[in-house]
């Protein structure tokens, strides 16, 4: 059951301050309405992961990691690797997060990121068969929200895309007779093949204003959200409206514009963060 959430309470004075500033085109932290907070991306953060990225977006902190396992392909795509995306909002990250299995918000976030990677074929899964029809790489992308100060989807998308860009495929031994595959994680056979970069830009409606990258207080005041997936070529590769309120056609048009304008900066940030790892492996980080 999906249930109307109880909204977090923002003190009246604070709420008014935020709204009054928005009316003048300003934010409480001096940003413009269409401006992201400072972005820090660290690649290769987790030694045991095949790929990982830590992202700090303002005070929001998230960690994405990639593990590769050998498994069976889907029956309808016997020669393709398999991507599985999970997200967890750990209870350390906010007093409002409960321990337990992922709730609908974490599941929605994971599925938005999953589709944003899958639909524009970001990972070249057709290069990830080991024994065609029998054994392929399973790509486990796990995302953890460590500290929640708003705009989780964009932070998690940045971390996910960067973690995938920095993922090394371990060496393997294939037993020709039995078909058993042994992973040798201490060696690597190259980077995960990536065809193109994508990012999301989530646009939030607060009162009658549209902003990007809200902090937690702004997010608590917002009534609707539109997350827009944009590819490095400027195509729209995913949309997801959320929130208790509606959007008008005009608002949607404006949100798309905000997304197309902001995406290049975010994609550059990902590319920069993954540059060293991809250079080291002799692969240029300009995508495919």
């Amino acid at each position, binding site marked *: *059951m999906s*249930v109307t959430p*109880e909204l977090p309470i923002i003190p009246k004075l604070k709420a008014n301050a935020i709204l009054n500033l928005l009316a003048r085109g300003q934010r409480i932290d001096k940003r413009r309405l269409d401006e992201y907070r400072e972005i820090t991306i660290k690649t290769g953060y987790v030694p045991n992961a095949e790929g990982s990225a830590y992202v700090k977006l303002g005070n929001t902190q998230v960690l994405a990691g990639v593990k590769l396992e050998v498994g069976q392909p889907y029956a309808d795509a016997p020669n393709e690797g398999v991507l599985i995306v999970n997200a967890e909002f750990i209870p350390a990250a906010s007093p409002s997060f409960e321990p337990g299995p992922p709730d609908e918000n974490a599941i929605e976030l994971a599925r938005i990121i999953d589709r944003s990677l899958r639909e524009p074929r970001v990972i070249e899964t057709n290069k990830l068969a080991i024994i065609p029809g029998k054994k392929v790489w399973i790509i486990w992308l796990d995302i953890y929200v460590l500290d929640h100060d708003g705009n989780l989807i964009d932070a998690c998308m940045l971390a996910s895309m960067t973690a995938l860009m920095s993922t090394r495929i371990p060496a393997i031994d294939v037993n020709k007779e039995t078909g058993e595959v042994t992973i040798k994680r201490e060696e690597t056979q190259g980077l995960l093949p990536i065809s193109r970069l994508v990012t999301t830009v989530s646009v939030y409606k607060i009162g009658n204003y549209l902003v990007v990258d809200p902090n937690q207080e702004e997010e608590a005041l917002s009534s609707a959200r539109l997350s827009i997936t944009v590819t490095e070529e400027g195509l729209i590769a995913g949309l997801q409206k959320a929130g208790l*309120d509606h959007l008008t056609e005009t608002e949607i048009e404006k949100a798309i514009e905000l997304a197309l304008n902001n995406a290049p900066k975010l994609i550059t940030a990902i590319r920069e963060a993954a540059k060293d790892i991809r250079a080291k492996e002799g692969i240029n980080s300009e995508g495919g």
Partner: protein
Amino acid sequence: MGVAAEKEKPKLIDEKGLRVDGRRPDELRPIDMEVGVLKNADGSALVKYGNTWVLAAVYGPREAVPKHMTLPDRAVLRCRYRMLSFSTHERKSPAPSRREIELSKVIREALEPAVLTELYPRTTIDIFIEVLNAHGGTRTAGVTAAALALADAGIPMRDLVAGVAVGKVDGIIVLDINENEDMYGEADMPVAAMPGLGRITLLQLNGVLTPEEFRVALKLALQGIKRIYDMQKEVLRHKYAVVEE
């Protein structure tokens, strides 16, 4: 979309510009709606978009059992979308899938802007959506059915909500895509709206579109939604008239 598109993709638009089921790009499937189909529920509706059949039932406003799950200033909407196990080609396990959990949220948020929840503080309105047969567009048919069930339950709304999915198949933007178009097409975009007020309450896109294609697709969706909305009103008017007699 995606993986399946690689292999044996059938031709989705023929030389006459018609679709796999003979429809024009801007044509809806045959749509059928019925309200008040269940005795126990406070409101109910059965909606069919071609072979996509969805049953919606509404209970409420009613007292919630764990008190702390209510809100002091308005009713809580609770929404569950699910597919019967034989509604799909391969049997669906009855355990709730991640997809069903996400769509329950997406559908709830498509209905929230319409319901005057502030009239019923400290109560719960339960919406159950059961897909009897799935052939593309189950979530949007679900929104259409749920809005009818809410109206049938006598719950005051700002406007009805209706939904339909548009898509891009063989490069063409088409209305009300069916399962084959969803599977082999390039994009699938479900939309729901309150047409009388020009408010869009559900918008998702799976697939890749240019910004221009997106604009065209959204317009087409809103046109289709308007037609479905007219059918909703007709069905309710008919039921109301019958009651009046």
